[in-house]
């Protein structure tokens, strides 16, 4: 299956720029380079952490932890895997550590999802999400989380963030064949769930209404 070109993917996957920023930070101690690197990948990182940690406070805590680990670990980054792959691995580990440290399992996240309609982490931005989009966002997330892990993360990172099967294999330590079969099954299930909810018409893009 060819790579889907997603909005912003070309910019985010500019590995040459990533490597240059890493080099400036590690070899020259350039703090600005570290901040630029973090800002480049912050939106992707935050979306992924929001999936793994529904509690906004926990997601914020995990974000801080990821950036601290990134600061410490960059000198050891050799560029053998793409920077995004490396970063998502950090995110995945940090989120798992946070959940484990609070003695909660993935079922807790699913239970927590039922309370999501009452949460609004960004009330200041409400005008940018009208009522219909907010409701669709909640239902979509609820359906995605019902897939369980690692299927939800695999599907999100593949279809929303544009990671390749090979990169997913590296992030989650799964064989590529396993990743493909899980992705196929997860897509099919998610489409079914969203169709049942009536919140997704897979034939149309949101801006094509």
């Amino acid at each position, binding site marked *: 299956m060819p790579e889907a070109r*997603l909005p912003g993917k070309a910019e985010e996957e500019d590995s040459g720029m990533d490597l240059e920023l890493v080099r400036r930070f*590690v070899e*020259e101690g350039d703090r600005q380079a570290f901040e630029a690197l973090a800002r480049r990948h912050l939106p992707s990182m935050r*979306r992924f952490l929001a999936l793994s940690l529904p509690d906004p406070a926990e997601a914020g805590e995990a974000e801080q932890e990821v950036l601290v680990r990134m600061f410490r670990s960059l*000198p050891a980054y050799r560029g053998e895997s793409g920077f995004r792959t490396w970063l998502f691995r950090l995110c995945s580990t940090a989120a798992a550590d946070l959940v484990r440290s609070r003695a909660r399992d993935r079922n807790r996240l699913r239970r927590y999802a039922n309370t999501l309609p009452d949460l609004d982490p960004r009330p200041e931005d409400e005008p940018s999400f009208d009522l219909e989009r*907010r409701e*669709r*966002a909640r239902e979509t997330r609820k359906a995605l989380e019902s897939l369980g892990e690692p299927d939800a993360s695999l599907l999100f990172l593949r279809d*929303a963030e544009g990671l390749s099967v090979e990169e997913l294999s590296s992030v989650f330590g799964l064989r590529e064949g396993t990743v493909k079969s899980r992705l196929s099954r997860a897509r099919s299930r998610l*489409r079914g769930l969203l169709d049942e909810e009536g919140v997704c018409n897979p034939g149309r893009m949101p801006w094509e209404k």
Partner: protein
Amino acid sequence: MGKMKRGYDRRDEVLGARLRESLEYFSKHGEPDFASIELAAGSLGAMPASGRTARRRPSRALLLIPAAAAVVLAVGLGWGRLAGPRMATKDDQGVDGTFSGAYLEASQADPLGTEVSLLARESVGGDLSLPSADSGASDTFHEELAVFVTGLWKGPLAPASPSWRESSEGVF
């Protein structure tokens, strides 16, 4: 086939856009606190001037090894000097086998040192008496062991032959 593939990719793209939009809504916004991140990472200690410098920096554990060896050596030498004068002489043991005089004082001041000396002597003859000169070759090992232990206790500055061994011709 080509059309089906394009249609399939398009469906993936729509699904991906929906997922992205959903998580975008729930994700945190705002600027990270880089100052606290740097502080938490222990930037002054952890941030290398260069990757090569970081790789050359020895670990703290490696630095502790010579320091610990120096402390052990200093303590050993100092203890050996203190223990030397406390070694028993033939005047310390009376005819009834009890200790008196300087040896008794030493044993009260340093019970552990006294115990080591006694153990060394016991290893020679099985009691507090010294081996006789005609004890034969079988005692050679015990004598050497006693010399070794006593020398170890007294430290490198001790004479090669302890005073009690020099008078081992007779029983005292």
